[in-house]
């Protein structure tokens, strides 16, 4: 069956997403890595839905709705920050640190 390979592929994809968030400093690339993690979890849901009922596929539907909302609001925040700082690098966003 495909459950084992799907879980293995999903685990590595999720880890690559986490590594991207930890290693990059560009806010937009970090956002894309979060999307990568959401996609890896979607693969797990669909793989388990094959044996545990349609609920998994429905949940992927909701994950997509949340991802769309998150992308819209998150990119609007990045635009607002860029207007103040002229940069999307995270080390320039240190207003609370000083």
């Amino acid at each position, binding site marked *: 069956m495909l459950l084992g390979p799907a879980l293995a592929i999903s685990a590595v994809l999720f880890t690559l997403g986490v590594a991207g968030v930890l290693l990059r400093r560009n806010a937009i690339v970090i956002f894309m*890595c979060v999307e990568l993690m959401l996609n890896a979890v979607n693969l797990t849901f669909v793989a388990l839905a094959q044996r545990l009922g349609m609920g998994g596929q429905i949940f992927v539907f909701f994950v*997509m709705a949340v991802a769309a909302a998150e992308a819209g609001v998150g990119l609007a925040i990045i635009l607002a920050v860029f207007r103040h700082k002229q940069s999307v690098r995270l080390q320039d966003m240190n207003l609370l640190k000083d």
Partner: protein
Amino acid sequence: MTVTIFWIFGVIAWVSALLCITRRSPVASALWLVVTMFALAAMFVQLDAQFIAALQVLVYAGAIMVLFLFVIMLLNLGRPGPTDIKGPAGLAMGAVLAALLLVQLRVLANARPPDAIQLPAGTIADLQAHQGMVAAVANPLFEAYLVPFEIASLLLLAAIVGAVVLAKRKL
């Protein structure tokens, strides 16, 4: 044969995800992420989720990634600049943390759901053959999951209002 094809798409997803997190240009990263999403859509088809695969291509690879590319181009980030990948110390720390997480996930992946709650093999495929691809998803969505569906619409409304307020000239 099915498993081989599944692994081929899995390796495509791995390689394109790796290229996505290592490319210097955000545009290149976004385009490699689109490749990952198409590979995932192919895997969804093999896992009896054809409708979810279509949504993956339309919503993720279509709408969401176009939004990302739109913002990248609006902010004029496509030019080659200095790399934004962290230095050796940050790189080593991130790699160790990611490796640790991978080990934990691999241990978890060996767990299987108990046989008592598993459906017999092919149940979902039979359901789809009987009801059709879309109805098999739509029936539970509008019956058992109706309240979460309405809450999702509220969430999207809140996101629209939030995005408009945040994008206004004067904050």
